[in-house]
């Protein structure tokens, strides 16, 4: 009834397409491997204690490090968390608990989605305008705020999703005990979703820790130890960028090491967050 040639062609097409899909995975693997190999092999050349305890040195002076940048990045993370987490988590809880059908919640959700699509460099301009300009100088505060702004929509949406996953029966059980709704939400719902929310928070921190663009003209850069959050502050990412585009081999070498440290931090937080999520009483997956 059906031509043999046609069947051969079908089976050939099938094999070809399956092969191509597999090939796509292999192709994606190549740049990743190349990147990891280069970052590790190049980065290891300067990967020694001095790098973690010394300040940057001028070109030609050996022994420079990125200690201030590492500290700066940590400072920025703390500020970003202070700015971003409360808003993100509470807004997420609001959307999940009270925002089923209201227009306000729909708007907030939509705006949060749009905000998470705003390019990070634009967030940098915003932080520059509202903080750097009035204060008159670059500062860790401005950089941290920029990163915090970026965290807000991410944390909001993850929190919302996770709180929504808590089964309704749990709430009913709590109501049945005569516990008011707000206590139910705080003590039952959020506590159950805690691990998931924490994972989302960690992942969002890991994500902004790798950001460079919004810091270029907010926290700027600094060659010395940070003394207050109201002055220009170095960060790993900006330092890597500055060194990478410099014409000096010595600095470029350090850029690779900085990239290695950055990569290790980001991957460690990622892996930790995911492991935590699996072992904890997670609600997802």
């Amino acid at each position, binding site marked *: 009834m059906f031509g043999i040639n046609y069947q051969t062609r079908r089976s050939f097409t099938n094999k070809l*397409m399956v092969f191509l899909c597999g090939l796509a995975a292999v192709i994606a693997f190549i740049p990743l491997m190349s*990147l990891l190999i280069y970052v590790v092999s190049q980065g290891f050349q300067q990967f020694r204690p001095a790098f973690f305890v010394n300040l940057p040195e001028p070109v030609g002076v050996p022994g420079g490090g990125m200690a201030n940048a590492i500290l700066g990045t940590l400072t920025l993370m703390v500020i970003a968390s202070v700015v971003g987490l409360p808003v993100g988590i509470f807004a997420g809880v609001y959307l999940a608990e009270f925002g089923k059908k209201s227009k306000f919640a729909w708007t907030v959700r939509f705006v949060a989605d749009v905000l998470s699509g705003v390019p990070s460099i634009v967030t940098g301009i915003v932080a520059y305008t509202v903080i750097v300009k009035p204060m008159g100088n670059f500062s860790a505060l401005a950089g941290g705020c920029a990163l915090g702004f970026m965290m807000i929509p991410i944390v909001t949406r993850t929190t919302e999703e996770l709180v929504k996953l808590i089964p309704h029966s749990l709430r009913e059980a709590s109501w049945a005990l005569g516990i008011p709704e707000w206590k139910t939400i705080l003590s039952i719902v959020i506590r159950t979703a805690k691990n998931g929310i924490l994972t989302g928070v960690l992942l969002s921190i890991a994500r902004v820790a790798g950001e460079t*663009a919004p810091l*270029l003209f907010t926290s700027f850069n600094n060659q010395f130890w940070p003394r207050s959050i109201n002055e220009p502050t170095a960060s790993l990412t900006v330092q890597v960028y500055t060194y990478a585009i410099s014409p000096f081999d010595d600095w470029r070498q350090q850029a690779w090491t900085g990239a290695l440290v950055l*990569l290790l931090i980001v991957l460690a937080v990622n892996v930790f967050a995911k492991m935590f999520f699996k072992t904890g009483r997670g609600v997802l997956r």
Partner: protein
Amino acid sequence: MNALNEQEVDGGAVKPALPFFLFGKFKEVGFGDKLFRGITGFFAFLILVLALMTFLALWVNSGPCFKAIGWKFLISSEWDPIQQKFGAVPFVYGTLVSSFLALLIATPLGLGISLFLTELAPLNLRTPVAFIVDILAAIPSVVYGLWGMFVLAPIMQAYVDPVMVKVIGGPFFVTTSIGLSFFTAGVILSIMILPTIIVISREVFEAVPNVYRESAKALGATDWETIQLSVLKPSKPGVVGAVMLGLGRALGETMAVTMVIGNMAQVTPNLLAPGHSMASVIANEFTEATGDVYLAALSEIGLLLMVITLVLNIAAHLLVWFTTRNYGRA
């Protein structure tokens, strides 16, 4: 699972399945409830404030440029800060060209990988491949840029660019460059948006109930025909959404592009020439911008970039909504 829970919650949290008088008491009398709702609602409101602030900051900041240059800003391709001549065209062009190139490369690759992950790969291969995708997504942009500058660009210059000139040539691949070009930017962007496309299209594919795959197989469809018939066809809107979100990420990507695109403001069909993008010009020149108009011009490019991503995002939402509605009716 997800949908089920949502339904459960949906039916309940706001208007629980309790008798209405009990429910009313719950809501009206409890001062704690009101307070809690008010506090969390206030934080939700702050998100709207943040959005408004973002827009206003850009708008106000761009003011001097509006005044000095006006609409010409959008159609002029001259960028000469010393002579106070500002035009956004080269940057819009660079952003669009590099992002489009990235989509061209990443869409087939990404869809192929997510099909491989959801439909084809043996079970023991799925976890490692998914892990690779996770790592790709986690690598900071500046690290991509570093690798792009020192590893990818030389490879492009030595091996890929000459081949493209020979094979395609034409106006798009004219002469070999120093490796810093629209093309290199497109390639590195394609790697960076790959995870976005994979993760979202994978979700879409996994949402297709297994019975549809089985019915296609029971009709004697091959693996690929099964995918076409029962997975790809109903997933079209979601796939479009995935690709658009990938595009959104490519448009706003700053560091990696800045480091490999060559940073030269020009409009040329030659993809091997150095160019500039909206994000990269801001990153490069914002701290060095002298004079109100210069700074305002950069802000206006930022505003433009935001408007473009905003339009894209809304269009993505509308398209998905429209096609799914169509599909629901159909």
